[in-house]
Structures are given as structure tokens and as C-alpha cells.
């Protein structure tokens, strides 16, 4: 078939397939709470 001039390239994911998900990003370590200042 003659499909004419190619103008776009698309990666088509079927609806039944899950969308690719970005790798989970590790949460940064919690900053240690400040010690209460000693009086």
C-alpha cells in the first residue's frame, strides 16, 4: 500500500497493557531531628 510520506513515529501501547512506570525513586533519608537545644 502507499501510505504517503511518513510524518510521525509512535510507540503504541495496547490499552490492556499497563503503561510503563518510572522506576521508583528512593526517598531521601529523613533529616535527623534537631536535638532540643539545651538550656
Amino acid at each position, binding site marked *: *500500500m*502507499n*501510505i*504517503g*510520506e*511518513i*510524518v*510521525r*513515529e*509512535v*510507540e*503504541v*501501547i*495496547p*490499552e490492556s497493557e499497563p*503503561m510503563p512506570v518510572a522506576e521508583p525513586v528512593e526517598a531521601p533519608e529523613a533529616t535527623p531531628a534537631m536535638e532540643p537545644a539545651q538550656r
Partner: protein
Amino acid sequence: MIQDFGREIAVGGFRGYRWWRAARGGWLESPWYGRARWDPVENRARCLVLQRPRRWVRRRHPVDHAEGPPVLGCDCGFYALHQPPIEAPRETQQIFPWQTSPGLSGRGPLVFGVAEAWGRVLIGTHGWRSEVSRPLALFIPQDATLPFTDEHAISARYRIPILRDLRWLLAEWGPDHVDLARSA
């Protein structure tokens, strides 16, 4: 020169119009180049044909494209059109046999219908080429004269709608409008 378009991501299959050959046992085959038999669920393209100036030649072995078909600089992949084909003069049909009126579906071995594409899809101004495809729906009129099979065998094998009126196929199964402009 081969242009690098970058690759967009879309969800849900692309649809397009195309022809199949209705073969014995209710199988649908690619009608002109290679007679590949279509699986009802999923068909992965292989690069098997070489286009010469006026005719296509079947290769002995599949071409091993690094990314698999379809490739921009080649002619491989499953084909379909954004719009139903318009009947061309007979001499034109000898070179471009798909330019046959969809109204002639089932008046011989060819049947007209809608295919779905996914995987890598190259979108052209008149149609697409895809990595993966399957038949979605067919138009076979009530008084069809299929020489090798019948619509019951096709329906049993593919479990897809077979519509008796071309207008129903176009209205219910035709492709959505394809945006030909590149997204930014």
C-alpha cells in the same frame, strides 16, 4: 535521507483500513506479498519483501533490522490506510491492487476491513505501517461470493464483527481522525 522523528507514546491501538485474502479454513492472509496467514490475536511483522521500481520481490530470508519492522528506510510492516481506498483504473490496479472499491469486498477472495496496530507505528499522510497488528472487523455483504471459505468460518476463527453494510463498518469501526502534525 532518513529523517529521525523521535518517538511519541500513545495508548490504545491505531486503526486503519486494509484488504485481506479469505483463504481455506476461514483464514485471513496478506493478499499480495507473501500470503502471510494472520493470527486472530497478534501478528508481528517480519521484513520479507523488497520493493523494486514496479514490483515487489519476496526475499528468501527475513531481513534482520536492528529494531525490527517497520523501518523508515524500508517498506516492511503491516499496512493500512486512514481512508477507504478509491477505485482506480484497471491499469493502475495492476501496480497498486489495493486501490479497489471496498464495495467489492467478498465478490472474490478479497475482503475489506479494519485492522488495529500497536508496537512501533510509522504514520504516513495516507496510512500507517506497524510492528504488530490484528484484524478488528470486516465488511462481507449478505450475497458475498467467497471462493475458498465463507463468513461463518472466518467468524468462528477470528471472533470479530462481520458487518453486512459498508456504512456500518465505516461508522462503527473506522479509524479516528489521525493528527498528522508532529507533536512538539
